[in-house]
């Protein structure tokens, strides 16, 4: 690993993509992720790739579709309102089984909302947004180092499963600087892409990439095939971090920026004699249901506290996992505000007192 250098989250994402062999970037500017574009505009051509500032988000995602269909490693990035515009493209990419990486540096919504950090796009990211029965792998890094490592991994996963992989960050992670150290060589795995539209050459038939299946039996078969793939991803690609959960009375569930704040809350709580642990989902889809269910089954676990920068979205998945075994509390901030450690600690003290 290189020595630690101070870099902005957005720039690290772009650097990671280029290191991962991404040679096509199509984007449209929007705060708070525009530095990804700036960095790509400066470096993509030097890396021998193609950078296009598209005329709109819709155009950008369809350029992603095209470049991916031709076998390229492709990235687009945006922030909440721009991601909404790309949703139609996500559905087509899922239907056509194309690998692609999309970064959403989330800002407060709904509508144009604000430009400050939020996690209000959890539902959209994990439950669709576009039409039809499809899934995207959604990864939620919590530090600049993770933005780097997980962006590289996102490209490998996208190619492995021919799926769209979303990096779900927020304005904090995009805008902040933190130390990052880079590997000398990236663990790049690019499989053969015999399906890609690279010209017929000596193939007997030309390849086609499509998401249209007019015959209902064909479309059902395609859907079954997709669902089988999603089952494999759900089985093999769940990622999470467990912190101090052994013997914990209260278990926090938080992702991304919130998990950073909660990490310090756990230390504070331990200082006043309350044993708090955390399960941090790293993949939001597939969701770490089993580890949460297992924690809920432990007799020493008294309650869960889900902390998010929204009105309560992931908490629904937590409740499904806990399945009524223990109370699941929620604490959230909205509009671009981050909770302070003390606010979360106060909530933990309240849960602790109620449980006595």
């Amino acid at each position, binding site marked *: 690993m290189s020595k*630690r250098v*101070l870099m902005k989250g957005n720039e690290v994402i772009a650097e990671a993509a280029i290191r991962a062999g991404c040679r096509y970037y199509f984007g449209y500017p929007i*705060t*708070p992720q525009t530095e990804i574009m700036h960095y790509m505009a400066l470096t993509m051509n030097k890396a021998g790739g193609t950078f296009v500032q598209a005329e709109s988000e819709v155009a950008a995602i369809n350029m992603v579709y095209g470049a991916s269909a031709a076998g390229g490693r492709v990235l687009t990035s945006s922030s909440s309102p721009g991601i909404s515009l790309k949703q139609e493209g996500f559905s087509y990419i899922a239907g056509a089984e194309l690998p692609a990486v999309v970064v959403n540096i989330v800002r407060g919504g709904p509508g144009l909302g604000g*430009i*400050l950090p939020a996690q209000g796009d959890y539902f959209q990211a994990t439950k669709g947004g576009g039409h039809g029965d499809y899934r995207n792998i959604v990864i939620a890094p919590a530090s600049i180092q993770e933005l780097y490592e997980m962006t590289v991994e996102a490209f490998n996963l996208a190619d492995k499963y021919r799926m769209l992989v979303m990096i779900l960050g927020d*304005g*904090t992670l995009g*805008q*902040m*600087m*933190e*130390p990052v150290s880079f590997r000398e060589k990236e663990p790049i795995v690019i499989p053969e892409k015999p399906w890609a539209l690279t010209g017929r050459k000596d193939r007997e038939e030309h390849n086609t990439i499509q998401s249209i299946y007019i015959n209902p039996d064909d479309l059902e078969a395609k859907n079954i095939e997709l669902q089988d793939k999603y089952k494999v991803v759900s089985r093999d690609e769940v990622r999470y971090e467990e912190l101090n959960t052994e013997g914990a009375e209260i278990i926090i569930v938080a992702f991304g*920026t919130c998990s*950073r*704040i*909660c*990490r*310090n*809350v756990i230390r504070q709580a331990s200082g006043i004699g309350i044993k708090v642990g955390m399960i941090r989902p790293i993949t939001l889809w597939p969701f770490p249901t089993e580890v949460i269910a297992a924690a809920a089954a432990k007799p020493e676990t008294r309650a869960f506290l889900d902390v998010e920068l929204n009105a309560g979205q992931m908490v629904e998945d937590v409740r499904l996992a806990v399945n009524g075994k223990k109370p699941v509390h929620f604490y959230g901030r909205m509009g671009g505000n*981050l909770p*302070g*450690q*003390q606010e979360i600690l106060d909530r933990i003290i309240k849960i602790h007192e109620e449980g006595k």
Partner: protein
Amino acid sequence: MIDYSIILAGFGGQGILSAGKMAAEAALIEGREVSWFPSYGPEMRGGTANCSVVISDEAIGSPVINDADVLIALNLPSFEKFKKIVKPGGIIIIDSALVKSVEAPDGIRFFPIEASTVASELGNMAYATVVLLGCLSAASGSFQKESFEQALRDVLPERRHHMIPDNIRAFEKGEAFAKSRQALL
């Protein structure tokens, strides 16, 4: 253990964001955990700008500061806005050539230094933030002069390295002020 949360605030164009980055770079050289978070969005020249820097021996939770250990203010609106969130026993450093006739809240270690005047005497107004960083270093111990000098060498392009000695002179002016003031507090 070191754990400082520092807010730098002033007008856009005063070099606030760069000064914060230099403090973070210097602390990084000393092996600390650091984070830097800017006010971002519709900022413009003449508007207000600020950044939050956290320097710690432990992993940093929120890079956004709710209670600050240190405020460095380069204009009156920033001083008025952020003085309320400085913790009791915390530090407020102001460029008193720009923020005039103000009192710090009770229980705050107050360092009013005419940083802009010192900088203009050194022949470059851009050194004002460096004077304030020198003051920060001596008042808080969050990073040392040697690390700041190393950070300058790392960050500045070669063709700007001739400016390092003047930067250090500016830094030392701030340091000396903080030390003499410290003795009175």
